[in-house]
């Protein structure tokens, strides 16, 4: 049984050219780049290569790691009517004395503010609630879809697979907008409901949680289907045959063989959906109501409407802390996938 690479397989298959991989050639991944007899000019080349290879990491350190540290720093600052709107501002040119002064001025005030105001707590809870429920709905829709595709005749499979991937390539914003078309008061959905006599007056779908769930499930469905499909496709069919030969009824074989073997795909799909959904902004903003905001919206309005950068930063840091556990789990799956599929 192969141990599937969750995300790499997914993204590779998301690409329209991605299906040509794997003609069965495997390499020994434990061995480093081919460096036969280390002659001296070649060793110089290897050193140059090491530096070359560091460039993407330097880029990510400057434009990903350091920015997040800056967010952390500003979350400890105080709001000020200035540009930039926070103090203290760290000035490396002022020397060590200034650094001490700078550290002394840092405070946990913003975190205390977040803890004291119920709006923030409610937003975090709302985000987690929506993320958990949508991940469950995604599993309930995604698994049967992936299972159906994996069992389809082989000549149909490539086409069906392509059809799951294709919506991913159309703009995210367009797909949400398409649902506004369908769900608005005089939209098609209400027209169908009225015509069939299910309802007498057109109900409002937009600005409700139902619309948010529809939008999220719709947008994230490919991310759930692809990893599950990848594990199901790689499953040995002899295992099911063996189960049948030993007198195991099909539903039990599904429960005892198929489901446990696809668990890696299920976990990968769930994490791939859950983590970004918690921080989702666009979908609740366009489809949801104004009663309870998700945390992404709260952060957005703190930043853009209230111009309170320190509080927005503190909101982001708390969100990051909430997501550390699922992020680590996801990282672990990735690292295992990279170590190779035994």
């Amino acid at each position, binding site marked *: 049984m192969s141990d599937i690479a969750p995300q790499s397989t997914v993204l590779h298959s998301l690409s329209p050219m991605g299906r*040509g991989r794997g003609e069965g050639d495997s390499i020994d991944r434990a061995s480093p780049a081919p460096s036969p007899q280390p002659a001296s000019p070649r060793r110089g080349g290897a050193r140059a290569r090491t530096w070359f290879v560091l460039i*993407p990491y330097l880029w990510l350190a400057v434009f990903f790691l350091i920015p997040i540290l*800056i967010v952390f720093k500003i979350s400890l600052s105080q709001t000020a009517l200035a540009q930039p709107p926070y103090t203290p501002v760290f000035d490396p040119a002022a020397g060590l004395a200034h650094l001490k002064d700078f550290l002394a001025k840092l405070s946990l005030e913003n975190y205390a503010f977040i803890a004291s105001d119920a709006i923030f707590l409610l937003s975090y809870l709302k985000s987690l609630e929506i993320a958990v429920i949508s991940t469950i709905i995604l599993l309930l829709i995604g698994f049967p879809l992936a299972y*159906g595709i994996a*069992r389809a005749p082989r000549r149909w499979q490539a086409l069906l697979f392509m059809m799951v991937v294709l919506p991913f390539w159309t703009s995210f914003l*367009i797909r949400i907008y398409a649902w506004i078309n369908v769900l608005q008061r*005089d939209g098609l959905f209400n027209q169908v409901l009225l015509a069939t006599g299910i309802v007498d007056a057109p109900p409002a779908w937009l600005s409700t949680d139902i619309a948010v769930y529809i939008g999220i499930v719709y947008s994230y469905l490919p991310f759930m289907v692809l990893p599950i499909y990848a594990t199901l496709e790689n499953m040995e*069919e002899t295992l099911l045959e063996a189960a049948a030969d030993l007198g195991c009824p099909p539903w039990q074989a599904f429960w005892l063989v198929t489901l446990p073997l696809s668990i890696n795909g299920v976990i990968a799909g769930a994490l791939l959906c859950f983590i970004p959904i918690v921080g989702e902004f666009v979908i609740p903003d366009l489809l949801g109501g104004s009663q309870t905001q998700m945390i992404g919206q709260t952060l957005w309005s703190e930043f853009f409407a209230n111009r309170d950068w320190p509080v927005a930063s503190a909101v982001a840091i708390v969100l990051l802390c909430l997501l550390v556990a699922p992020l680590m789990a996801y990282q672990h799956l990735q690292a295992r996938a990279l170590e*190779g599929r035994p």
Partner: protein
Amino acid sequence: MRRGMSTFNFVSVALGFGFLYLPIAILVIYSFNASRLVGIWGGWSTRWYAELINDQAMLDSAWVSLSIALLSASAATVLGTLAAMSLVRAGRFRGRLLFTGLIYAPLVMPEVITGLALLLLFVAMDVDRGFWTITIAHTTLTMCFVALVVQARLLNFDTSLEEAAMDLGCPPLRTFLTVTLPLIAPAIAAGWMLAFTLSLDDLVIASFTTGPGATTLPLRIYSEVRLGVKPEINAICTLMIAVVALVVTAASLFAKFSATRERVLPLGAQV
């Protein structure tokens, strides 16, 4: 997986695809609606497309978006390919977890956090925000996607070809250019396309890192969509879907073509 679909399998696949495609189909059909009112069908018409051509602001935004996507996808492809090479080829070393973490974390990090962090960096560096800051932000995000796509190809790569070239005295750089690069080219192309699409699509990170004069297409569409459904927006969305469908079809045809060629190429490379 054993072939053969039950009724349940068939129904779940049919319902799943209905859910995925129906809203898009409705959007496309209504872009040809002659009536401005969305609920009423006023017959077929292309008037919204004609109005689109006269919408200079929308065209400008499309141009800004395309330029940013082209630049950031190209930069991300170079950086992402380098990152993928190092992930697959470097073996085990200390601090490896930090390096792999740097590549994987941006993939799932909520966009509001990435966007906020980049904006605060640009403010701290005191640079003018606009076209270039969006390009840098998109490069940072999409290079990680490129790295994953190329990495998947490298994991299935036959290193004996490279070893053969080196044994025959081919210097490393030339080996890379003449042996490795042609073999991973399809994955690099796919990575570029993924980066291009993601950049064209991004709204949240662009909102944080944009400045005066740099309104991308998603930013413009978003501000219009907040005000409700408009037939012009249906029209531009239909055009974007058409472009994506064309590009993806062309790419899969190209992939089929290069897959047949790939089987011949390794033989050629050994000569």
